[in-house]
């Protein structure tokens, strides 16, 4: 096995970390295996499902495609870092109230993407919302509950027609 002396220095959920890992280790594995932040899920490992979504400097990225060195010096926010303190983020609350989740395996990634949308574009059109969310696959809900949550958390999406 190849040893590495690379130390990833970045901020994860607001905390500075220094982790010795291979420079090309995937962020999703670092989060789950090294940091035990298992809220980030892995399902496809090729950037298609969105289960592993995290925020990198506030923008949603698939952590299965993000290599350690690419995160150096940057700010990573995982689902564990979404709700400030005890309170749920409005997006999380809306997901709960509208049945935006079932098995919950896509939910963390979904919430991360939705949070980014919520912050970047609080009044998206339906097309924009679809665009933002279509990198997240949910196999359980048929997306309806998630759409209801999107509307409920204040994003003004018109669903008709």
């Amino acid at each position: 096995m190849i040893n590495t002396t690379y130390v990833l220095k970045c901020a994860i959920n607001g905390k500075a970390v220094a982790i010795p890992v291979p420079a090309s280790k995937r962020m999703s594995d670092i989060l789950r295996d090294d940091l035990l932040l298992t809220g980030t899920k892995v399902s496809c490992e090729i950037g298609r499902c969105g289960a592993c979504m995290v925020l990198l400097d506030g923008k949603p990225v698939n952590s299965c495609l993000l290599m350690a060195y690419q995160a150096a010096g940057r700010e990573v926010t995982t689902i564990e870092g979404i709700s400030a303190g005890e309170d749920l983020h409005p997006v999380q609350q809306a997901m709960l109230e509208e049945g935006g989740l079932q098995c919950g395996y896509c939910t963390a990634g979904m919430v991360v993407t939705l949070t980014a949308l919520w912050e970047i574009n609080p009044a998206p059109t339906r097309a924009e919302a679809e665009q933002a969310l279509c990198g997240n696959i949910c196999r359980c809900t048929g997306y309806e509950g998630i759409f209801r949550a999107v509307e409920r958390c204040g994003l003004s999406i018109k669903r008709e027609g």
Partner: protein
Amino acid sequence: MLLNRETYAKKWIIRPDGEEKVTGKLRYLTDLTAPGMLYGKVLRSRYPHAWILSIDTTKARQLPGVRAVVTAKDVPGMNLFGIAFPHQPVLCHDRVRYIGDALAAVAADTEELAEYALSLIEVVYEPLPVVDDPETALDEGVMKLHPEGNLLHRTSLQQGEMSFAGCAHIVEETYHTPRQMHTYMETEGGLFIPEADGRLTVYSPTQHGYKDRMQLARILAMAEEQIRVISSPIGGSFGGKDELNVQPFGALLALQTGSPIKMHNSRKESVIAGIKRHPMRIRMKTGVDEAGHMVAHQVRILADTGAYATLGCEVLNFATEHAIGPYTIPNIDVEGTSVYTNNGVSGEFRGFGGNQVIFAVESQIERLAEKLGMDAWELRKLNLRAPGDPGPMGQKIVQTEGASQVWSKMMESALWAKRAKLQPGSGQSPPSESQDPWTRRGIGAAMVMHGAGLGLGIPDHSGGRLELTPEGKIQASFGFEEFGQGLYAALTLMLQDVFGCATDDIVIVIGDTDRVPSSGSSTASRATTMMWRALQRLRPPFVHTLLQLASEWAGIAAAELATGAGGIHRIGDEAGTPVVTYAQLAEAAEAAAKPILAHTEFDYPTTPEGLVGAHYLYSYAAVAVEVEVNMLTGRVKVIQTDHVIAAGPVINPMGFLGQIEGGSGMALGFTLTEDAVMKESAYLRHNLDTYLVPTFKDSPHIIRVEAIEELPVGDTFGPRGVGEIGSVGLAPAITAAVRQATGIWVSRLPLSPEDIVQSIDWLERVEAID
């Protein structure tokens, strides 16, 4: 009633397991770790069909960091598994029959090492000819995949005399349905811990912990009690995790190494080794008389069950039973055949064989209606089963008005009003608001009758337990599993209903064989019904004991007391403070050494007569859709979907709605994009980049779900499950809508845009663009 948060406000509750999910705190079984754990990996076959001449694991064993390599020789007990009958090798030693067959498993310090060790295992194969075509698998001279031959199962269902002589119109058509993949987001895996006392703890997603325990005990040659299976929470299953998957390997490696073993399949491995929906080829010949009465219906079903049986027989039985839909036809002749091939293993999947045949029979109705020049919905009504009619197998069934209720209710929807304006079956596009000139819209509908429970002759046992914990909580224990369907929420609502208690008076225990009674599998839309029935039986003895004790404590007659929030209340003072709290009762019970508990065991209700698999309870659904077809690309987009479901009282509205919406989403994929294509028995699609499940962009803009809750007076069967029914009727509704929009009949799923483009007349297309 239309299902939404307003109409069902009182029962629209936040699911108890929701918060942990939206915050990412919930640990799925594949998220677990243990100190000193090793990683397990499985060596799968290189060929879909081959003799195994030798397996040499020497080099893999010598690799530093590799802690164990197991092959068939290391299986202490029975080297076979299977829900229905043990038939599939845990580890193959003489022959491989499909690309997912396992030959060896490795435990190593890291995942990479385990993976590398697999590549050091030397297997000498002698490839065999591949049987990849279910059509020819039964031909003379084709190599037998199993000693009994390539036929897994045959079914037949006959009534009346098969003759098309008196028919005014006959439609004969062959329908093809795809090998659909469950695509649960959490792939298979878990953690396997050999305990200090010699027991084995298995943390692994499954739909039936007790069945897994039984099978693992057989494989490991251990007593069942020595194994504890913890089976919830699960990141989706849809039938796909009912059969054992990685559990035998994890367990074997844990016992061999004495260390915890972690396994988690990659998506590719999940595709290769996981079961799929049976691809079916269904030939139907259906005849009607002048007036449209269905006279004769001949059906030939051919199912590709792949290399091993799993629930292939049961799925075929279900398909056979449902091949006439919710109609009565005097003369029927259904024959089903399920054959082994070297293709991927087909097994249980939401809808259980109903999806395939309902697509066919509903498509037949559409074609017949057009021949008759009649509206297809009217044709359905003309042939619809009426209350009092026996079930599809001539069996006695629990009667409801479900069929006609969903039929009529559909006509009240707005989507229907739009449809009513169209000419029946003319391929005429309805006027539409903001339509591009190259798109056409169409509306179609379909009906479903769907059996619940496992059916006659298949053990369908259940049970449950209630107890008052020392902390004064009402604890309900069931052997069911939570894989997203909302069982915690459903049970919470039922318990609140039954005891009038508060949410925090309740503790729910599921999915742990050490702590719950056996309730049977969480499958076949049975869990909600079973829990409801269990509570009906548990309530009287449990409440009686509680009230007796409360009466002694408070000196008030038991008849004046009732259970409520926080404890026992005087009747009429439910809102006040309890006379005695549950905690006080628990204390009293403990002091008297009389634990308060009730236990029940029973079977799912089955028909007293009929053939194996025949159901007793049915639910009904109607679904209508509006589609938009892009005439240039052949792409079909579903704009709007209306579901009407008759399945008895709605227990958990958010869950009910979610099941129909989710099932419908899955059916959308089945109809439009999903096919685990195989070539020469090898998968051509290994991940979500080529196997396309619906995304946000693909899902309809509007989905309405209407629940018909009334059951006939005196119906003691209560709520029927809805886990499956929402996934069944969408496909034929979509293809009927496509017919209306474009004039094209679709008989192969997923429907291919190429076919649509090629079927459209070029000149007509030019006109459409103009």
